[in-house]
């Protein structure tokens, strides 16, 4: 280090970097060197590989090497006067900023680089932020939200012009989300400020890397007059170290015949899982929901009381300090096991972890691979993953996932199409941060992949929306946001500026309440809707403890430690992921094999008994068959359909089929869906023959029918909540105006109704409907599923009892409803039933 300063001839930059690698006991991989070269040559690109294979250093050393080659003379380095802004590092999670900072600092310190490295996120101190507004550090770690916020400060634009490179970490997490689009828009702005900007992304391996790359670096405008711009041909996709070995296995229940057919907690497996955890040093236990982690943590402690303090819990609703403690324990190898949700999917590498346990369906092959990669972190080590089924049929999913991984069928991350809510937010951001000319900004926005095909009409609508509220001239009197002077758009009113800054972002969370001990320690957050229903004294599991509700005051739920058994476990809302189409297809294939008496793999062999029952009572559907089962139960007449296309497609199908049946006959359907199929319940029997059933899957008038059935299920209304929030209709708190905040409360449902009635052409409504089609119903996937089913043989069965495939659907709660009856009819029927029930009890 310092001794080299005295050398007559300065060391070459690559030697300096090699020496750093030696110090950590590594040698640069070939992919790392090619990334450095590409960066040096001014290229942008995407580096993808499994976690823990040196991606961070691959992109981070590029800017360092470049600076070193420009500043070879160490004598001239001035640690007290660090260079101005050069590199921006975007991380998807602000909780990761600290860890990222530590790992980026390592080479800086070793080399003795006079760079200043800092973070700027929602967690940063106000004083640090104010200082940064004057002068940004050499390298800044930030989040998409904080980056957008910085764009509202006009005085930062000069500094952004000097920016040399932007690195987006965990790009696969942002891709296909509105946060990703927010990032694309911010990048387009930075690229405008410096056309030679290098943009690099780090990503897990995906099925659509080419699209992922394009979304990151943007697209060339059709008639570009800017020769300096980075051409798309100089954009690289670099694959990281790939010879990572993987060992996948399932933990098969000891007594398969008594293992339940449905459920999603799987606590029967606790003893076997505890044994597995015991066999290694450090384990990550992934569960699919936060409440599941709470339950599993308790159950593991009950099974092995001596593990108290040596196992921990980690999920997104826990207090930051708790999470940080757990992460530290993981890094140091001090914890035997951590039960977590996807909250630990991201983040720096935990080298100590040598086993990953996945509880319940992984939903996708890529996700399973990614999680497995959390163990065996040295590039040469083997990743170990054990899968724990929570019900019998889930074993099939792992069998299917193994097939998909073996065949290399990894999921693609579907992209979003030009969401106007995010664009509206961006326009206001830019209007505050220096203003814009319409044509210029439109050209800039169209360089993003998301808005490449934005039409002039859509652009004009968004402009109108931020200027006068909507396209209609007289529907929004007295409304003001962005001001227009000729062709120049800007926003100068301080109050609006402040409230916009407070509302930047695309993450929409439910109203959350802090959960605190009486003495003041914060445990975390839970949804208001859950906490407000608890009575004082009611006990619930939270943050791995049993606590009881004391009172709710000032939007804080106060609790104290409690003993006994919990009355409830908090439920946190969260997107429930559908089974991917790759995995669904593999699953249908597995069933097809089973229908041919071919059971391959331990998982399928373990399912023999259950599959025999299915075959006996009904059939096991072949890949070219659609199974329909009809049965009467206590609550009504049930129709089960098994397309095996993933939950979202099934939700759409359920609404569509219910709509199509109820169009011909006045009735009301209640529906439930899972990844395997659909159940439709009605008060009367529906007669089905193969021709009728086939007509339900007809693709004629499909879009019109979907839209019609969707109105019934009000999905668009729910989606509108997010759209309204991002577009600035629903604001989260206005500065210094507590009283006004109450006047401005209106639910998104109410907004939706008012818009439908008084401004039906509002494109935000249109967007919500489209988002429902694209994301919630996966309309494209639905269409191809229906075409597939149209070619299938339709098998209608009336089994004597509810079959193993149908059982999980039956016990699922019925959610959606489609009805062609009037409300009055439905209420009258409810009344009749109640009276009948009353007469029954009086007898």
């Amino acid at each position: 280090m310092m001794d080299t300063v005295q050398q007559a001839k300065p060391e070459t930059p690559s030697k300096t970097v090699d020496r750093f690698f030696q110090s950590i006991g590594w040698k640069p991989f070939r992919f790392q060197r090619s990334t450095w070269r590409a960066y040096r040559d001014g290229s942008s690109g995407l580096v993808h590989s499994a976690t823990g294979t040196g991606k961070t250093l691959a992109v981070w050393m590029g800017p360092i090497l470049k600076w070193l080659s420009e500043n070879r003379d160490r004598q001239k380095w001035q640690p007290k006067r660090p260079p101005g802004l050069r590199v921006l590092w975007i991380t998807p999670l602000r909780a990761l900023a600290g860890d990222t900072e530590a790992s980026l600092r390592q080479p800086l310190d070793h080399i003795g680089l006079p760079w200043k490295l800092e973070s700027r996120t929602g967690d940063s101190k106000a004083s640090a932020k104010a200082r940064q507004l004057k002068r940004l550090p050499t390298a800044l770690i930030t989040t998409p939200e904080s980056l957008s916020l910085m764009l509202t400060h006009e005085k930062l634009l000069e500094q952004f012009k000097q920016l040399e490179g932007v690195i987006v970490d965990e790009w696969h997490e942002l891709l296909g989300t509105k946060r990703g689009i927010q990032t694309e828009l911010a990048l387009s702005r930075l690229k405008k400020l410096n056309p030679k900007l290098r943009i690099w992304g780090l990503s897990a391996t995906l099925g659509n890397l080419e699209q992922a790359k394009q979304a990151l670096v943007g697209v060339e405008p059709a008639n570009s007059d800017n020769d300096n711009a980075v051409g798309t041909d100089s954009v690289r996709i670099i694959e990281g170290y790939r010879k990572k070995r993987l060992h996948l296995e399932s933990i098969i229940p000891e007594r398969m015949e008594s293992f339940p057919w449905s459920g999603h907690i799987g606590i029967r497996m606790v003893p076997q899982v505890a044994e597995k955890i015991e066999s290694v040093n450090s384990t990550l236990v992934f569960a699919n929901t936060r409440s599941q982690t709470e339950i599993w943590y308790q159950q593991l402690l009950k099974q092995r009381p001596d593990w108290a303090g040596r196992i921990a819990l980690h999920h997104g609703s826990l207090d930051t300090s708790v999470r940080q403690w757990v992460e530290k324990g993981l890094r140091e190898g001090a914890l035997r096991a951590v039960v977590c949700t996807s909250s630990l999917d991201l983040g720096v590498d935990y080298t100590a972890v040598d086993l990953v346990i996945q509880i319940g369906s992984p939903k996708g092959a890529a996700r399973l691979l990614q999680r497995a990669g959390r163990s065996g972190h040295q590039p040469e080590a083997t990743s170990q993953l054990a899968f724990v089924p929570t019900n019998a049929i889930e074993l099939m999913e792992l069998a299917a996932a193994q097939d998909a991984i073996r065949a290399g069928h990894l999921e693609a991350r579907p992209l979003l199409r030009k969401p106007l809510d995010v664009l509206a937010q961006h326009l206001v951001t830019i209007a505050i941060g220096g203003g814009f000319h319409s044509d210029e900004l439109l050209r800039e926005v169209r360089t993003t992949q998301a808005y490449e095909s934005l039409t002039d009409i859509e652009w004009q609508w968004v402009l109108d929306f931020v200027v006068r509220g909507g396209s209609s001239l007289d529907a929004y009197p007295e409304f003001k946001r962005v001001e227009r002077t000729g062709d120049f758009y800007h926003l100068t009113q301080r109050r609006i500026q402040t409230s916009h800054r407070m509302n930047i972002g695309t993450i929409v969370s439910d109203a959350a309440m802090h959960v605190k001990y009486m003495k003041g320690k914060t445990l975390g957050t839970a949804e208001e809707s859950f906490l407000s229903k608890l009575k004082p004294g009611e006990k619930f599991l939270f943050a791995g403890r049993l606590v009881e509700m004391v009172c709710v005051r000032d939007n804080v739920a106060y609790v104290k430690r409690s003993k006994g058994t919990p009355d409830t476990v908090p439920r946190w809302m969260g997107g429930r992921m559908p089974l991917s189409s790759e995995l669904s297809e593999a699953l249908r294939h597995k069933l097809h094999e089973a229908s041919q008496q071919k059971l391959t793999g331990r998982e399928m062999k373990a399912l023999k008994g259950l599959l025999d029952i299915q075959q006996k009572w009904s059939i096991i559907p072949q890949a070219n068959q659609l199974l329909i089962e009809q049965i009467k139960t206590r609550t009504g007449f049930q129709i089960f359909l098994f397309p095996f296309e993933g939950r979202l497609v099934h939700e759409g199908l359920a609404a569509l089929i219910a709509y199509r049946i109820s169009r011909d006959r006045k009735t009301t359907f209640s529906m439930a869906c899972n990844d395997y199929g659909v159940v439709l319940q009605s008060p009367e029997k529906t007669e089905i023959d193969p021709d009728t059933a086939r007509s339900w899957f007809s693709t004629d008038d499909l879009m019109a029918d979907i839209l019609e059935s969707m109105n019934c299920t009000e999905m668009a209304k729910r989606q509108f909540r997010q759209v309204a929030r991002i577009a600035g209709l629903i604001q989260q708190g206005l500065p210094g105006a507590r009283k006004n905040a109450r006047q401005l409360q209106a639910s998104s449902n109410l907004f939706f109704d008012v818009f439908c009635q008084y401004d039906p052409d509002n494109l935000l409504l249109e967007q919500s409907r489209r988002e429902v089609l694209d994301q919630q119903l996966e309309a494209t996937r639905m269409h191809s599923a229906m075409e597939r089913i149209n070619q299938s043989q339709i098998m209608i069965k009336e089994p004597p009892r509810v079959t193993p495939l149908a059982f999980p659907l039956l016990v699922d709660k019925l959610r959606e409803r489609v009805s062609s009856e009037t409300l009055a009819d439905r209420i009258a029927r409810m009344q009749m039933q109640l009276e009948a029930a009353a007469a029954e009890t009086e007898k």
Partner: protein
Amino acid sequence: MNGAVKISLLNYELELLPEKGIYWNQQHTLFVADTHFGKEATFRFHHVPVPEGSTTGTLRSIGTMVERTDPKTLVILGDMFHAKSSLSKTTCEQLQAFRQHHPTLQIKLVPGNHDRPLGTLPTDWEIEIIPAGEFADGLAVGHEPDNFPSGAALMLCGHLHPAVHLKSVIDQPGRLPCFWWHKKRLILPAIGDFTGCSTIRPTRDDGVWVVADGNVISYPRRKSPKSKRASS
């Protein structure tokens, strides 16, 4: 008869209208609650783009009821306007138009919590401010259901924006605004077009009538044998 329901509560004959108002024939009076006029203007004033239309929509509902029942008096049971900023030029014009269309109608307002910061209303609207308390013949009016006037037999009020969640094993029509008869109070659903509602949990002794698809319908549930509820 146009989806309305006639009920008799403690010998008061009242008509529950599907436009969410109550007509009391004996006094030729129409009651509505929580109009929240100009709420959309308040949102726009705070830079949230909500389109015009809900105030005129609400006025149209009231107009429909006025035409059908031909009352002498219209009583607004509080929260006539949403906030001070609701009295925008546009809102005022809309109310002016309503006034001109019904020049002989007496309009009375029992001020609600949202009305307090408003100051005085334009005098040419001829709106008489009346206090909460007995209105006529032992029937009291108020905004908030609290403070039941002593000596009154029954009180009409608003404020809560009541709705019930309809749900049974086989069907779930969802949340519907309702009239709620609870402890000698008859609480009206909010008539304002741009207002939300809050779900109530009626007890066995309560009466509930939901407003659905242009009909007022008695809330379906098991009748308790001792129910004092009178129904149509």
